[in-house]
């Protein structure tokens, strides 16, 4: 079981890295956006005196995870389903769990790398200081919960994809839309109309971004958050609930092959 999952993860990773287009356009895209946003708004400072580019860096870690977990998982699965990889694997003694663990390993490795690249851009280009040890502990659980929740939702949404060529487009709609309303692209979130703020708070992205801002920004920055606090309890709760919702959706919607042939 472990060997199976590991060899699956190994091939998944080879597969991803050898497809250069995927590496450039999927993996490095968030870093590119961060460079753009950070440079454009680089001279601006928030009320608490923190540079906007650092706020972007912290928030963009959430985008990075959405990108590597939600989009990569969802489109990868849609692709495997369409080209028959899932079906072929179904015709072997490999249990379904080994398939998903293999994919999860890919997602985990990519997410760690993605977060590292974004943090590196923040540190090297926008002079973002690295947090202390206790903040790194908080980072780990927010990071893990985010990756799990986004991957599960990616698996679930892949069931809606009828044609794998459109997978990227379909999956990016919620990703991009939520980033505008969840305080990733547009800061601070309190600029939004009240109802939109409430609506966006139902989804995990706001809480992921808020959590990462807690990790990477000085404590004074919390005045920019809705309610003026980091509210880590709510971060854990919302992400946890979405993990459960994602898991249930996965179990209900998972299919081994495209419906018609």
């Amino acid at each position, binding site marked *: 079981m472990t*060997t*199976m999952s590991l*060899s*699956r993860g*190994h*091939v998944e990773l*080879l*597969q991803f890295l*050898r*497809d250069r287009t995927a590496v450039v356009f999927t993996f490095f895209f968030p870093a590119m956006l961060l460079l753009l946003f950070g440079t454009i708004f680089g001279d601006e400072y928030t009320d608490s005196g923190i540079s906007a580019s650092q706020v972007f860096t912290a928030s963009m870690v959430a985008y990075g995870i959405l990108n590597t977990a939600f989009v990569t998982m969802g489109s990868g699965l849609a692709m495997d389903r369409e*080209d*028959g*990889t*899932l*079906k*072929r*694997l*179904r*015709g*072997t*003694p*490999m*249990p379904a769990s*080994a398939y998903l663990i293999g994919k999860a390993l890919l997602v985990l490795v990519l997410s760690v790398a993605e977060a590292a690249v974004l943090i590196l851009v923040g540190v090297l280009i926008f002079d973002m200081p690295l947090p202390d040890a206790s903040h790194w502990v908080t980072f780990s659980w927010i990071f893990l919960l985010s990756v799990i929740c986004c991957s599960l939702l990616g698996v679930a949404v892949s069931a809606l994809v009828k044609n794998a060529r459109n997978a990227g487009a379909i999956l990016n709609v919620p990703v991009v839309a939520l980033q505008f309303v969840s305080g990733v692209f547009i800061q601070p979130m309190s600029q939004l109309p009240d109802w939109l703020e409430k609506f966006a708070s139902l989804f995990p992205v706001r809480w992921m971004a808020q959590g990462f801002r807690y990790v990477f920004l000085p404590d004074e920055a919390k005045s920019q958050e809705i309610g003026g606090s980091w509210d880590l309890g709510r971060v854990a709760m919302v992400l946890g609930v979405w993990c459960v919702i994602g898991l249930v959706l996965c179990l209900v919607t998972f299919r*081994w*092959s495209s419906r*018609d*042939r």
Partner: protein
Amino acid sequence: MAAVEVRDAVVRWGDTTAVDGVSLCVPRGRVLALLGHNGAGKTSLLQVCEGFRRPDSGEARVLGLDPVGDHDELMPRLGIMLQSGGVYPWAAAGEILRLFASFAAHPLDTDMLLDRLGLRRVERTRFRRLSGGEQQRLSLAVALVGRPELVFLDEPTAGMDTEARHTTWQLIEELRADGVSVLLTTHLLDEAERLADDVVIMRSGKVAATGTPAELTAAAGIDLLEVRADPGLDLTGLRTHRKVTETSPGEYAIAGELDTKGLAEVLGWFAAVDAHVTAVSSRRRTLEDVYLSLTTQATVGATE
């Protein structure tokens, strides 16, 4: 207990009925070939046996188990070769084979398989750069690597060159010698004739004929004798029990009772009329004759 037993299987894809009440049985340790044109329902039937879908009606039992319900128990004992697709395009041939070997409890030696199937040269070549025949051979290796008791091969030699085709045939014969049961689809008559213990000919989703290749090609043996002798012989004496025609001057075609005694009689007659015989050739019906007559006729022929 049979390796595969299908009873009255019906498979529909939307409004089209791909398999329409097919029954068949693969006894343990035997090779059954499903023959038919493209679209005759061979692959759909195989999908039912492989547990990829349930039949819309009827039943399939594989090694005594339900291919859908007992999936986990069954898979370690099966080898499945699909027609195409489903392999990581960016992974190399050797990596793919080793991945599938890692799923099996007691896999075959992957190096041996690579050598046997002539894949050593492309071990490090990515799947998408392999030729059609190489992809096909890799698919076969993937199906066999888990030491299955029963293999499903969907058009195993499609796209292979002659040499690879013969290697594949040899491998399938070795499998059978080891007691492995094989259900394969093909539209190559020589493949079926060489490999299969039993043949099922499918036409538009139904079974058109079943039997061993010998049964299907008429076990009687010779059913046509061609003799070259002097032209314009008077054939009345020979026509008592058989159909004789002079197809071209000096070429005689004799059909009918042609067992050993019959053959002696025919040649005896030529001797009796003092004919100068320069060539004798016998021809038996091939599977191809049977197949074509079954699959091109408007009405379905009965089992031979």
